[in-house]
Each structure stands twice: as C-alpha cells, then as structure tokens.
C-alpha cells in the first residue's frame, strides 16, 4: 500500500506540469519564416498572423467577405476606387491608434518595400488616400476584382506604422490582432498573449497562445494524444483512423481552396517536345487513365476529394461541367491511337514524401494500363522548384495552397507570362479571357469569362487537377467552438478550453 501511494505521488509530481487552462497550444508542421506579413511566404506563418494581425476584411467559411478592421467598403462605378470605412477605437499592440493614415502607411509599404512579396498582389493600386480619420480610398489604375481577397490576407494585415520603422520589426511584430507578440525561439515556439485592448477582446478566451513547430506527423499526433498540444494542423492521412478511434480527440477536416495537380511541360525547353507535351490527345489520354477516387480512398483515406478544375468546391466559379472525368482506359487507348503513338514514356517529378510517393506510384500503375511508361523522380522540394522553373521536367506533381479569389488559382499558372506557369503553356485567347476576368467585378460576367477559359483549358490540359487539398485538423475534446476554415487558418474567435 505504501509503495502504491509513493508511486501515485511520483506520477502526480511528473504530471503536475499541466499548463493552466488559459493557454492554447497549437502544433504546426514547420517553423514559420519572417514574422512580417509583407515579406512572409509560409502557410504556417499565415496561421500565426491570423491571431497576431487583424486584416481589413476577413472571410466566412463559404468564402464571403466580412468586416474586420474595415466595417464597410464600396467600389466606385468605374471599378477604379475602393473606399473603406474603418472601425473606430482600434489600437495597435503598442497603443498607437489605427486610422486611415495607418492603412495608407501599410499599403504603401506593401507595394513599395523592395523585398515585399505583396507587391504583385497590389499592382493595380496607384495611390492610397486618407479621406478622413476613418475613411481610406484606394485609387486603382484599372478595375481589380481580386483586390478585396488580397486585402483579406497578408496584404491587408495592419501593422503599427511606428513599429514598422524599426529595423528588426520581423523579430518583434506589432499589429492589432487579438493576441500580441511575446517571444519567438526559432524552431521551438512562438508565444502570443491576449491583447486586452483588442476591439473584440471579449470573444477571445485565451491568455496565451503557443505555436510549436513539430515537423514529424507521428510525433505531432503523439503530442496531441499525450495532452502536450490542444490543436494540430495537417494530420497525416494514415493517422486519421487513430484520431477517430481516440475518445479524447476530434478530427476536424475541411476541404480547402487549394489543389494538387500534375503540371505538364508543354512549352518550356526541349523536354516539352515530347508526345505528352506537344499533343493534347496524349494528355487527355493520360488524364483518362487516372482514377481519382482510388487515390482518395487508398492514399487519402477519404480526404483527397477528387478535383477536375482549379476552383474550390465552395466557389461560385466552379463549373459542374468540369467535374473530374471518370477513368476510361479504352478511350485513353483510342486517343493514343489517334495521336499515332503506341506507348508514351515520361517522368513525373514530385516533392519527396510518403504521401506523394504513394500517389504517384498509383498514377504510374493506372497509367501503365493505358499505355504510359512512367518513371518517378522524388525530389527534394527546393531542387524541384528550381528544375520546374528551368523546364527540366516532363510532369510535375505539385500543389497550390489556394486563394479565395478565383484569379489566384488560375491566372499565374496558365497565362503566357504567369509567374508560376512552369510548363509555359501559352494561349492568347486564354490570356485575354483571364485578364478580362481580372478587371470584371460583375460576378455573372466574370463567371462566363472563367467558363470560356476553362472550355479551352479542359481541352488542352496544361494542368491535370487531381484532388482538392483538405486541411485535416485534429484537436482534443477539451477544445470547444473550433471551426476549420477552407483557407486552412486557425481562427480563435469563440474557441475555448473546457476545464
């Protein structure tokens, strides 16, 4: 009995480290990069910013825009002025007031700072005018339909103009979000604490939020199971069953706005001069050889929702006509015959991971039945990017995290000069349609333009879309009120920990 008591005591001591209920611990897949929204690039960085920095506008789970720092906004009739009314009484974490001058300082910085990665998102902005204390007008060189969605992300995050002057801003970011920056230990944690003067402070329930990067998915899950984490992002598909079977955990997936696809080298250097790169019938045959449902069931455990187009299911720009094509080996063989080829050889390159390896092995096996001899080349990601840009690939299996506005999921991938158009596909008619969609604010007209562009792209297939990226979150049952958003961000409004 004595021994038992001692053991219980020891166990109690060991477990007494349970952090107070006021702290929320979030497991991230990697360590974020610079904590400066204008220069940052990582997905995990955006997750941290979501708690740290308020934006002009936010989105709803069905991708509609809602007020955040701006309470209302209006487009001028010619589509060349976007006017925001700002929320009164908002303060930055350093006590500076948020007003039209602050918005101007932020947007001007985002579009002029030399290493700003937001510049390309704000090309239409010619000037920013502080009309009065709480009204700001963005003057544009042309109508810009995606602009509002840019301002619902990093380009619209507001930092304290006073703090921006500091050279080490990225190490001590000052914004106006519900949580303020406390410390960062690279590769270990980013700690935020409650900002008591936040305009909506009563909706937020945590004193502290700690982000911990844990790259290994198994270990990330183990931390959740052991109670060292409360929420984790990007659960591995192979672990879904374990989470569902654990009475203490909740699986909270949401279909995202991004996709995974196969980019085909149609026009980038010598490797484009292949049957696959030069003949759309060969590409159509390749697509018909793939059964997306199999990939979803076998590798994705049901979270790799088959995709046939770049726009997310939640988007009004998605066209039912282009639902994923069903596998049809006979028709694929027929198309190859028409193209005058018997067997087609090419290579698929992909960023190396267990999941991508499995996906591409399945594609390899399925396509073989239709007449494709595919070799696989798992590549480390930085090398893959470089080779993609240089045209040293036949097919790249690569993903896109997705943007709220349809333009972000299509324009730069298939227009002749698109920055992410690795295959250098080029069709002037597609360019014309997509450029016009960019400057068309009317939803119906815009949808027609995208439909027309898709009609061409679905026939020529410079990119074969495979599945929609699901954001598989998992959290403990103690976490209440968590809602996963399609952009994969973690919004803590209304979220609390049950005691």
């Amino acid at each position, binding site marked *: 009995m004595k021994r038992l008591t001692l053991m219980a005591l020891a*166990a109690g001591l*060991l*477990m007494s*480290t349970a952090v107070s209920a006021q702290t929320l611990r979030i497991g991230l897949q*990697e*360590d974020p*990069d*610079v904590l*400066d929204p204008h220069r940052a*690039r*990582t997905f995990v960085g955006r997750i941290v910013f979501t708690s740290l920095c308020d934006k002009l506008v936010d989105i709803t789970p069905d991708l509609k825009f809602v007020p955040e720092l701006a309470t209302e906004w209006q487009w001028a009739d010619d589509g060349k002025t976007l006017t925001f009314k700002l929320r009164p009484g908002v303060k930055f974490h350093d006590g500076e007031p948020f007003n039209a001058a602050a918005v101007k300082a932020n947007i001007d910085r985002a579009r002029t700072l*030399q*290493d*700003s*990665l937001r*510049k*390309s998102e704000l090309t239409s902005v010619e000037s920013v005018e502080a009309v009065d204390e709480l009204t700001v007008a963005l003057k544009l060189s042309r109508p810009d339909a995606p602009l509002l969605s840019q301002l619902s992300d990093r380009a619209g995050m507001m930092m304290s103009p006073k703090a921006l002057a500091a050279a*080490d801003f*990225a*190490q001590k970011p000052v914004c106006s979000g519900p949580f303020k920056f406390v410390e960062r*230990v*690279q*590769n*270990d*944690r980013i700690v935020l604490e409650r900002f008591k003067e936040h305009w909506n402070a009563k909706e937020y329930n945590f004193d502290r939020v700690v982000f*911990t*990067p*844990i*790259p*290994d998915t*198994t*270990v990330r899950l*183990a*931390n959740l*199971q*052991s*109670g*060292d984490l409360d929420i984790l992002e990007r659960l591995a598909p192979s672990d879904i069953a374990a989470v569902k079977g654990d009475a203490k955990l909740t699986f909270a997936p949401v279909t995202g706005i991004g996709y995974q696809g196969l980019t085909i080298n149609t026009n980038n250097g010598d490797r484009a001069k292949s049957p696959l790169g030069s003949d759309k019938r060969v590409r159509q045959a390749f697509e018909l050889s793939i059964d997306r449902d199999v990939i979803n069931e076998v590798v994705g455990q049901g979270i790799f929702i088959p995709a046939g187009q770049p726009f997310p299911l939640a988007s009004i720009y998605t066209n039912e006509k282009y639902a994923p094509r069903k596998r049809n080996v006979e028709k694929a063989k027929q198309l190859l015959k028409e193209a005058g080829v018997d067997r087609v050889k090419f290579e698929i390159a992909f960023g190396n991971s267990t999941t991508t390896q499995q996906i591409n092995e399945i594609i390899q096996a399925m396509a073989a039945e239709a007449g494709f001899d595919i070799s696989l080349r798992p590549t*480390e*990601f*930085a*090398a893959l*990017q*470089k*080779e993609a*840009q240089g045209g040293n690939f036949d097919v790249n299996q690569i993903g*896109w*995290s997705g943007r709220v506005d349809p333009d972000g999921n299509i324009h730069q991938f298939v227009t002749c000069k698109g*920055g*992410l158009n690795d295959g250098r596909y080029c069709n002037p008619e597609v360019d014309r349609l997509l450029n016009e969609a960019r400057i068309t604010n009317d939803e119906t007209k815009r949808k027609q333009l995208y439909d027309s562009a898709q009609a061409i792209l679905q026939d020529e297939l410079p990119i074969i879309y495979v599945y929609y990226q699901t954001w598989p979150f998992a959290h403990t049952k103690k976490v209440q009120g968590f809602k996963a958003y399609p952009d994969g961000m973690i919004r803590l409004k209304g979220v609390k920990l049950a005691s």
Partner: protein
Amino acid sequence: MLRYIGRRLLIAIPTLLIVSVLVFALQQLLPGDPVLTMAGEERDPAVLEFLREKYRLNDPVPIQYVVWLGEVLRGNLGISLRTDIPVLELVLSKLPVTIELAILAMIVALLIGIPAGIISAVKKGTTVDYAANVVALSGLSIPNFWLGIMLIMLVSVRWQLLPASGYVPPTEDLWLNIKTMIMPAIVLGTGLAGSLMRHTRSAMLGVLRSDYIRTAKAKGLLSRAVILKHALRNALIPIVTLSTLLFGELLAGAVLTEQIFTIPGFGKLVVDAVFNRDYAVVQGVVLCTAVGFIAMNLLADVLYVLVNPRLRHAA
C-alpha cells in the same frame, strides 16, 4: 603543456579555413535556388532580383567567400535568410541546448557503457558477458528514430509520465527541463553506450592479460582494487579518446533525435537551414561545429596526457 596547447591552436587555424572553403564550395553544388526557395509560392521577378543583390548571390563564389570571411573575422556570421535572425544569435541560443543534451546523453552512455564493459571483461565468456554484449549491440543497432517514437508512444501517450517533445530552458523551469530531456538523452545515450561498452571491454581484456596485473593478483590484492585501480586506469586511455570524439559528434547535432523530440538544437537548425537553402546559417553552424570538434580533439589529447603519465614528458 601550455606551449603544446598553443601549438595545437595554431594548427587549428588552417583546418578551420579549409573547412569553411569546403562548406562554401559544397553549398554551390546543392541543387535549388535560395532566393526561389525563400520566395515560396510568390515569385515576383523584381523581388527575386532584389534579394539576389541583397545577399550578394550574383557575385562570383570566391568574392562571396571573401566577403563572408571578412565579416566572420569581424565577428559577424550574417543573418538567416529565412527568419532575419542573426546567425550568431541562433548559434548561441542553440548551443546550450545541444551541449546540455550532449552532456546528458554522455552521462547515460558512460553510466551504462563503462560498468557493462568492465563487468563483461572480468566475467569474460560467462552468461553475464553475453548478456551485456546483447544489450550493447541492441543499443547500437536500434535506430534512434524508432526508439524515440516508441518511447514517446509508451511513456508520453500511454503512461502520460513525460512530455512527448519540446524543450524548456533550465533557467525557466529546471524540473520541466529535465523531464523533457530524459527521453532524448536515453535514446542518444543508449546508442553510444554500445560502442563505449565494446571499447571498454576490449581495452580491459588487453590490460587484464598483462604481467603487472598478474603480479598484483599474485601479491594478493583485492580483486576490486586490481580491476578498478590497476586495470581500469590503464584501459581508460582509448575510452577517453572515444568519449571525447563521441561527445564532439553529439555537439554536431543529433539530427534525428532532435527532430523527433522537437529539441531546438544544432542538428535541427542545420537540417532546416539546408532544406531552406539558408546558406548563412549552414555556414555559421558548420564553422561553429568545426571549432567544437577541434576543441574536443584538443581536450582529448590533454586528457590523455593527464591520464597517462608516460605522455607527460613527450608533451
């Protein structure tokens, strides 16, 4: 002795220069483009060009090297391309973590390896010897990542006794710090204990066969005194060398173990830096690691002299 150390330190300078040239040259062979990696999904050509200029990536490699070396000599290791944090700050913040892990792992290794080595040498050919050998070999052959994950599953998930991963500085919470370090130290330590045990065993066996041990035994000395005082002292020399070299290796970063237990040490720093093509960090870390290795080698030689009186005159 001091002159000896001074001479060794002078020799270290060309070694460090060669190491830094090698690292610089090897980095150029890495596929990929640091700026492209840094820009991620966004690829504004003007921004890419600006970053190339900013980090002097357009300059010829020898010029980049000279500029870098000049900065290093002035105590500036550059800043991380990915996070903007100065490399020196990164190195200094990771170093105590890695040193702590290395020391704890070494303690585990020594506590297991040396006694096991002595016992199996003394009881050579018995069941005890075989059992010790099996334990040592399993320590050597079980992969760190597997043992790490198994420990996490059992100790943290099933029994909920220790935190699954992470790191807390001892200055912040000593008890929690120890708790987070126990499992990684065991994983690393058991891996090293195997080789320590094997070396201790063979060194002891060699010594135990020598004439003076037989004489000591014949004199009727207690066998414990013979083993610990006469035999072990002489068998220690190769063990000291091995231990310091193993320790040097630990300082270079226990990459897998740090990755699994999410310990923000050197190994994790350098692996992430390589994947992100964060050249400044890779260079800085390799340079510091090389310094560490040279220091450990020097320490090994000094300890040698201290343990072995015969070498004192030579030094």
